[in-house]
């Protein structure tokens, strides 16, 4: 029973997350209903792209969350390495498959958008390639952190990988400014006013908020599952050594 004391703090987390999870899930559903209504029905077609522009309302939020998820994972990894907080490793481990999912959505919707607009599914320009690398970093983290039966053993190596891979995040963000690429430059996060008409910016921001809450909901669920899993494992080990 000796290592059960480590879950004193996580127990508090379990209680706290049980209370806020239904709220998070409810807000996510509400934002998705409103956001999808605006994105699919209550927003105009683009003057150049026509109806195809609606792919943006999924592609852009997914891309933002794929980078946000990696930042969460890198932040949690740094916390785990420096302060040895028991929840940090679990957060990093939980964020990886979720982030990988959002990156896959980004790549798939980007490809579907690229074919009609650019005339190609895929090009090896700096933006697209750096996002593909992000996807592989996620996969590497998933593989490394789950390579051992004892989840704590792979955690350190995976944390170092997450921190090293973090250099890719600013490269993704600024690739459209640093090199000439096929991908267009940033429309929303720039010093001048956003280059998107308010009637199209509104659904984009609602969808971005919906994706953020969706990510947080999934992250909390995944952390809870991981905590429960470890608790079961610790109890089994304790039982086995008692016999």
């Amino acid at each position: 029973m000796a290592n059960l004391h480590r879950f004193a703090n996580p127990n508090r987390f379990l209680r706290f997350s049980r209370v806020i999870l239904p709220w998070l899930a409810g807000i996510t559903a509400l934002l998705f209903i409103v956001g999808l209504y605006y994105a699919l029905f209550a927003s105009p077609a683009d003057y150049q792209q026509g109806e195809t522009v609606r792919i943006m309302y999924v592609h852009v939020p997914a891309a933002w969350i794929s980078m946000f998820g990696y930042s969460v994972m890198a932040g949690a990894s740094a916390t785990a390495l420096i302060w040895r907080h028991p929840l940090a490793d679990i957060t990093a481990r939980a964020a990886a498959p979720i982030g990988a999912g959002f990156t896959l959505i980004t790549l798939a919707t980007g490809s579907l958008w690229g074919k009609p607009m650019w005339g190609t599914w895929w090009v090896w320009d700096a933006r697209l390639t750096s996002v593909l690398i992000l996807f592989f970093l996620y996969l590497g983290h998933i593989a490394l952190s789950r390579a051992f039966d004892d989840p704590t053993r792979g955690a350190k190596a995976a944390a170092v990988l997450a921190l090293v891979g973090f250099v890719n995040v600013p490269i993704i963000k600024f690739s459209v400014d640093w090199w000439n690429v096929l991908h267009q430059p940033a429309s929303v996060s720039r010093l001048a006013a956003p280059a998107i008409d308010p009637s199209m910016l509104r659904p984009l921001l609602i969808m971005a908020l919906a994706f953020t809450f969706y990510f947080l909901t999934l992250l909390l669920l995944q952390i809870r599952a991981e905590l429960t899993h470890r608790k079961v494992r610790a109890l089994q080990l304790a039982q086995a050594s008692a016999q």
Partner: protein
Amino acid sequence: MRPKHRRLYFVLFGMAALGIATALVLSAFRDGLVFFYSPTDLVERPAEPGQRLRLGGLVEEGSVSRDGATVNFVITDLNQTVAVSFTGILPDLFREGQGVVTEGMMQSDGRFVASDVLAKHDENYLPKEVADALKASGNWREGAVDSTENAPQ
């Protein structure tokens, strides 16, 4: 609490060193990471005939002419121009004043024969009515002009 601080400085130092190393590598490979060359790049450093490369810029206004299945047009970066010919299906967004990236070979007569043409989209999103109203009122700022600000010098 010394070990905690040691680990903190170790991680901070490691991230800083990694960031600087990456910045150095990326700036060293700057030319290699370019997805396409501009007409000015090609005039300054002429490519050998037969070397495959990508050429990008704006389709010059009034330069598009069709000769059967072959399309001839001029790519400009508002500084230099290169004449391009292409046989095949053009993407929907291809039009005069639009940013494009073409892939092909420089011919010995200075023409660029493209085997692929990709349309480059700009970062502006507008409903059609707003774009029409801006054009009608004379306040239209061509999206293409915006993208040349980011074009290679």
